[in-house]
């Protein structure tokens, strides 16, 4: 039996992503049509029932977020979609935009209906520059939705007004952070804002703003239309399904939709075909560059919020990067340290300077000049960054390093003489 499912990805390769007619024929916009017969509170209750968590990485309850939005009433609001998928090893939002752009748009319209402004909604899909080849497809989808009256003024006679646009990123990982994303959308350098005020109160163009990830929006119309299939999957505490990106040393890298609760081992060996090198697996990294390193001994951990939490790992963006035993922890550290040093926005000292030191220490490790004192410095530094950084980038970055030190202590210590 196949271990993948297709609820969120139901339209993939079946419905022409450039044709609104095909999307409608496949049940598209039925979620929206049903939504407008419901009260916003009822829709939130529905999301709450499935315990939908944000799918960008932070896993914040979507129902709670939308509930906040309803409580802030304003004539004009911002509705944002975060398609700045920059977590290394993650490309599932890419496939959602590629194969189901109307689903994302429909989810955003429902979002605007529930938590939007009474007179006008400025909706923006912020797509990373690296996905420039998808900007046209999404713009085209917006245009078709406008022509059919799903966007624009007085949508389906509800009085709801939305003007929607695609905004291009320009290459900056930190823009995945919600307030940095808004700064960037406004045409500024993407540095995170101080919070509070929360974006729910003061967001895009200082308007109250509702912001969700591509996958989160994609799930909404499915739940509103009929949540029974989605809810038939998963575990008691992690209801439903998840889009994951599997890559690294596996035979069949790609985007897959899995029910919550299957194990990492099943993902690696049954879904992704096992290791391309036929060598033993050394570790996987779950959830992106700031996700924890999981050693082979923990492969039977289920991929679910509670299952991963038990071993101190988060679902994150749903990335699964697989490494066989030909990979040294040092090379992996090198890749991570350079990535974060490059992407740190420089606003706060722990992250900006911490990353410089991290790159230096990794350099010493590579040249064989690192000492035991450097090891202590490394651990101190990571603790400091975790505790004192301004935004999620610096706060979560230490996770893979600390996990690697824990699980591969002998190897890591071996680089320090």
């Amino acid at each position, binding site marked *: 039996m196949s271990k993948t499912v297709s609820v969120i990805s139901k339209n993939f390769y079946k419905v022409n992503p450039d044709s609104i007619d095909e999307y409608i024929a496949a049940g598209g916009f039925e979620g929206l049509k049903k939504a407008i017969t419901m009260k916003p509170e009822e829709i939130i209750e529905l999301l709450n029932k499935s315990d939908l968590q944000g799918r960008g990485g932070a896993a914040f309850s979507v129902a709670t977020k939308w509930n906040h939005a309803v409580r802030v009433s304003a004539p004009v609001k911002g509705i944002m979609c975060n398609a700045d998928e920059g977590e290394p*090893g993650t490309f599932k939002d890419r496939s959602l935009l590629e194969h189901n752009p109307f689903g994302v748009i429909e989810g955003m319209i429902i979002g605007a209906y529930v938590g939007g402004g009474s007179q006008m909604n400025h909706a923006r899909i912020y797509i990373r520059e690296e996905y420039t080849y998808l900007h046209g497809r999404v713009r085209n989808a917006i245009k078709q939705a406008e022509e059919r009256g799903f966007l624009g003024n007085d949508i389906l006679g509800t009085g709801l007004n939305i003007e929607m646009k695609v905004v291009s990123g*320009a*290459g900056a990982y930190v823009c995945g952070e919600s307030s940095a994303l808004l700064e960037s959308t*406004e045409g500024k350098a993407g540095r995170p804002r101080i919070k509070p005020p929360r974006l729910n109160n003061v967001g895009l163009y200082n308007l109250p703003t509702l912001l969700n990830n591509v996958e989160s929006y994609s799930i909404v119309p499915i739940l509103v239309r009929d949540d029974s299939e989605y809810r038939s999957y998963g575990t008691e505490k992690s209801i439903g399904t998840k889009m994951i990106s599997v890559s*690294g040393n596996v035979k069949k890298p790609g985007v897959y939709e899995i029910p919550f609760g299957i194990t990492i081992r099943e993902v690696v060996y049954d879904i992704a075909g096992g290791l391309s090198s036929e060598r033993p697996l050394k570790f996987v990294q779950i959830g992106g560059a700031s996700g924890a390193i999981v050693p082979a001994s923990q492969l039977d951990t289920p991929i679910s919020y509670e299952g991963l939490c038990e071993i101190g790992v988060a679902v994150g963006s749903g990335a699964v990067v697989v490494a*066989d035993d030909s990979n040294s922890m040092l090379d992996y550290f090198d890749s991570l340290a350079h*990535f974060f040093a490059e992407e740190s926005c420089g606003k706060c000292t722990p992250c900006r300077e911490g990353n410089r030191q991290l790159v230096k220490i990794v350099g010493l490790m590579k040249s064989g000049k690192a000492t035991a004192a450097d090891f202590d410095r490394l651990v101190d530094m990571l603790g400091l960054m975790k505790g004192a950084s301004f935004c999620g980038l610096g706060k979560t970055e230490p996770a893979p390093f600390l996990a690697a030190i824990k699980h591969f202590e002998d190897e890591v210590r071996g680089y320090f003489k």
Partner: protein
Amino acid sequence: MTKPLNSKLEEQYPELYAQVGEIVSKWGASRDNLIAVLLDVQSKSERNYLSKEAMLAVSEIMGIIVQDVYEVATFYHAISTKPRGRFLVQLCQGTSCTVNKVVNVKDALEAELGIKIGNSTPDELFTFEYTPCFGACDVSPAMRLNGKVVGNLTPETIKQIIGECREAAKNE
């Protein structure tokens, strides 16, 4: 548009000024279009970068102080304020590409181009640099060649791809 009545810059660089003006009117002069404008202006430049003059023109025409334009231009990876080669080769340094031994591809590219990563070839044909993960991990190791993803790289395919670039440049 908020451009001044008498622009020295316009007198000095009439072509560039007109081009930037066109791009600004296409996107709109409000601040939130700045990144799109900069990307667009850069793409029209022969050396695939934003010159000082271009930034000054954007600043004048959009009415945004030049410091702000410069800050944005230097903050983002996709915008360069230094001239780049006709072919921009950006090799992924991400985790998935790392475990798929992107280092071998890097060595092959350095040998083929005759330069170390982080540099341009003396003939200004190629600029070769590292870039963060661009979401093509399913075909790792991968690079972007003038923005286009090329995946499943091996030292052999590198030879071929670079050869094709040289060929294309010759026929231009």
